[in-house]
């Protein structure tokens, strides 16, 4: 029972300690790193599930680190919203850790210890960002996640180094913006606790400094989530990262940043301030429309599978930012639901890309020739992920789109609805182009002068299992969208919308 009470802390501490353990054990036995990482992720996942269960039973949990009372000590606040995000993040991390085994052995045989240490630390950062109720503590964890993220990406080939460096610069600017914003808030209020800020700020809503703080924080998280036009670092960084790192970073980092945006907007500022007092919603929805169209169109122009997926992430970020700024209950519900769904969809597709790299050594679309014949099970799972991206029922992607479009109709933002539909159609073209290559073009066996010499057949079990699990989840979560919304998400939508 004691352990259950400590679950909110354990979900961060387990991977943190895991990272140290991996580093130490790795000196003696490189092979043990993977098992340790999976174990740490599993422990963290269990703690997250227990936490969510507690919330659904008793409501919001406030956990005081070291017993210090807020606003002086660091407080973890977990409500339905971040409970849901926690479970999503830890679930995807667990699957990504399982997937990493073969991929890392092939791509990074000499850097296994570093990889798993960074991997687990990154997850620590992400979970910490999600769980914390302290604006400055969030910055610290943001940096932990960011620094490990840079390093993980830079583990890839030479191009990854350049892309990673780009990411370091822009990511650091983003973090600085955020820190600057928090600094403004601290000067004005003397507090860093989110709940405390929420109570103090309304008296200062007319103040320009608060507005500046708001803009700084918003720009900071937008840089972190690669919201158009601040997305330039993302495509190359995620394309050239090692496959196993891509499977963790691509689905989660942008999604957690979206979480942070919504969290800061609703729990530091308030729905009243961001939607009613400031008149930015329309402009931001237009920006989201631009992000969706830009991401979709550039995805069309790619002939590289991973690069195509990265531009789709840019478009999907537009979905979520736009959905939130529709300022309607359905729109916010859709944005939150899409955090979960998009994490799973992106994971599904990046795992598939990882398998392609593992099997063929490349990630061009033309590397997929003959895949349906050679690996039908893998392709079936990929097809489910693709259909979810297009938004075909009953996959999860359909239902978040459902809420987002309803939110658009509700708010009269028909341009946003049109952008979503266009993006769905573009996704249909994109994925059926992939499917065509894999289905129609026979595999030409030009004995590879580069790349691994593995005959193309079904992926190994440790890669296939996460892919199949997430594909099945996409359908199950789709069917249970209503349950998720009524039992969890509706509590996160500000009352009175």
């Amino acid at each position, binding site marked *: 029972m004691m352990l259950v009470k400590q679950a909110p802390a354990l979900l961060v501490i387990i991977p943190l300690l895991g990272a140290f353990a991996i580093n130490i054990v790795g000196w003696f036995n490189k092979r043990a790193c993977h098992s340790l990482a999976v174990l740490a992720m599993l422990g963290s996942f269990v703690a997250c599930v227990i936490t969510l269960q507690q919330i659904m039973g008793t409501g919001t949990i406030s956990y005081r680190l070291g017993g210090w009372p807020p606003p002086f000590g660091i407080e973890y606040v977990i409500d339905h919203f971040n409970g849901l995000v926690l479970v999503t993040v830890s679930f995807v991390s667990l699957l990504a850790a399982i997937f990493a085994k073969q991929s890392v052995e092939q791509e990074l045989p000499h850097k296994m210890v570093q990889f798993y240490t960074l991997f687990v630390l990154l997850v620590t950062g992400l979970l910490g960002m999600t769980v914390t109720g302290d604006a400055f503590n969030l910055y610290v964890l943001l940096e932990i996640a960011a620094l490990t993220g840079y390093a993980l990406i830079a583990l890839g080939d030479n191009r990854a180094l350049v892309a990673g460096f780009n990411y370091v610069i822009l990511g650091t600017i983003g973090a600085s913006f955020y820190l600057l914003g928090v600094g403004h808030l601290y000067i004005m209020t003397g507090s860093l606790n989110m709940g405390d800020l929420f109570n103090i700020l309304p008296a200062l809503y007319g103040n320009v400094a608060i507005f500046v703080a708001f803009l700084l924080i918003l720009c900071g998280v937008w840089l972190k989530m690669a919201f158009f036009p601040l997305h330039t670092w993302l495509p190359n960084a995620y394309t050239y990262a090692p496959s196993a790192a891509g499977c963790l970073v691509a689905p989660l980092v942008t999604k957690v940043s979206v979480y942070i945006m919504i969290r800061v907007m609703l729990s530091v500022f308030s729905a009243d301030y961001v939607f009613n007092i400031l008149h930015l919603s329309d402009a931001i929805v237009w920006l989201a429309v631009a992000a969706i169209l830009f991401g979709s169109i550039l995805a069309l122009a790619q002939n590289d599978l991973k690069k195509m997926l990265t531009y789709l992430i840019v478009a999907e970020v537009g979905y979520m930012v736009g959905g939130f700024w529709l300022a309607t209950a359905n729109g916010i519900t859709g944005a939150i639901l899409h955090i979960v769904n998009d994490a799973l969809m992106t994971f599904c597709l990046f795992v598939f890309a990882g398998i392609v790299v593992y099997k063929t050594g490349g990630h061009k679309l033309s590397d997929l020739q003959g895949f349906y014949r050679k690996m039908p099970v893998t392709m079936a799972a990929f097809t489910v992920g693709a259909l979810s991206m297009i938004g075909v029922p009953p996959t999860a992607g359909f239902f978040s789109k459902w809420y987002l479009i309803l939110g658009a109709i509700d708010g009269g933002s028909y341009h946003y609805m049109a952008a979503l*539909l266009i993006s769905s159609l573009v996704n249909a073209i994109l994925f059926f182009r992939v499917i065509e290559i894999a289905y129609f073009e026979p595999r030409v066996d030009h004995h590879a002068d580069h790349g691994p010499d593995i005959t193309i057949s079904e992926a190994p079990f440790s890669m296939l299992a996460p892919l199949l699990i997430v594909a099945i989840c996409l359908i199950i979560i789709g069917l249970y969208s209503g349950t998720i919304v009524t039992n969890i998400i509706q509590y996160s939508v500000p009352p009175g919308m």
Partner: protein
Amino acid sequence: METIISIKPLLAVLVSLVAVIPIVISGKTPNLREAWTFLAGIIKFGLVISMLPHILGGGTIEYSIFEVLPGLAIKLKVDAMGMLFALVSSSLWIATSAYSIGYMRGLSEHSQTRYFAFFAVALSATIGVAFSANLFTMYLFYEMLSLATYPLVTHHQDEEARISGRKYLGFILGTSIGFVLPAMLISYFAAGTLDFGAQGILAGHFSKPALTVLLLMFVFGFAKAGIMPFHAWLPAAMVAPTPVSALLHAVAVVKVGVFSIFRVITGVFGTHLLQSLDLGTMLCYIAAFTILTASLIALSQDGLKRRLAFSTIGQLSYIVLGASLLSPKALTGGMMHIAMHAFGKITLFMCAGAIFVATGKKYISEMVGIGKRMPVTMTAFLIGSLSVIGLPPTGGFISKWFLVLGTLEADQIVMLVVLLGSSLLNAAYFLPVVYRAFFCTPEESMFENKVQEAPIWCVVPLVVTAIGSIGLFFFPQPFFNLASLAVQTIVGG
């Protein structure tokens, strides 16, 4: 009007989906594999038939599968109209399965396991559309059908199949996502429900211009109905093996399209609403344009399957016209035409396939005198043609009779002229084929020898459906009663 809750409709949908598992497992032993297809087909048909008495008694059968979002459920409901469609497609699946065996083995096609598996999935989706209780469920099965038929259409996996497949999905998926999805969401947002109602759900929620736009989005969005200009996928899809064209592009897929339009007109808008705003006439002209244009194009096609495809496009719009006239007789005629056209057109497609299997000929110009070699097939072709033209003694006459009466009832003389003119065009593009087959001297030496038909598995199904076409002239009662019941609910409710 008694409503009972029963799991039977769900079982009828699922049986072919479940059959995919044994079909795939026994992929190495073709005879066993096809036995599974037949077993599933017969169980499906049996389940549909077992629900028939209750429906004919004026009742309905409902089953809620799952409530996905609050107020948005995957739900099945069997009523007279759905029953009619389910009866047609489940009975013809059995005939087509037999035909598939003859055709696929006769040509030693590759990947037959995949072929039979996806065929079974497609049938599940078709019955799902027939039994949908709300627009959302219908949309779900509609999309499932689009995707499940893609591997069937592109079966040959060559460059031509690839381009056709692109066209197929481009039109069908493009319109359903681009038009139907937003129209469905807007309807849901305004009405708060998507359940088909006897008098629709949209009354009082929209102005006339908004309703007009919505109606057009739905009608063009269900591109499986082949209304111009969203018809081009159907001739392209003729690249598929002929059994696919026969069942899917004469019965299941295209009829799902018109059935969906029928449902939207009657269950979402409601005939009274459309009548009071005079929106039916607009649809009539859209349908009439497609009827005449498609028939004219069909005249000039030399590929037999392409001629049949354009004929189908025209005939589908008969059904849309029946719905758009909004009068009881026209609605009855439109619904019956779903059944009558299905039997006639599937016969014609099977004949085209049988000719291809036996002689390798695809073009009408190469079929001069073929009646000497394949008299049974060509006789069936004649019967199918008569049914599509609408001449007695075939079922097509009955549905056309009601459509013509419907135009008079709705006081749309222009539409009467369109129907009669189109019948002449139908005769003009079908009868020469028959005439040249029987009465001209063969140009090909292979036709002069003795009678040599396609394999027995090919011939028997097309004879059965041809006899069915004639039988429906003398015994149209099952379909007529179902259509009348459905119309009573729509008009009287």
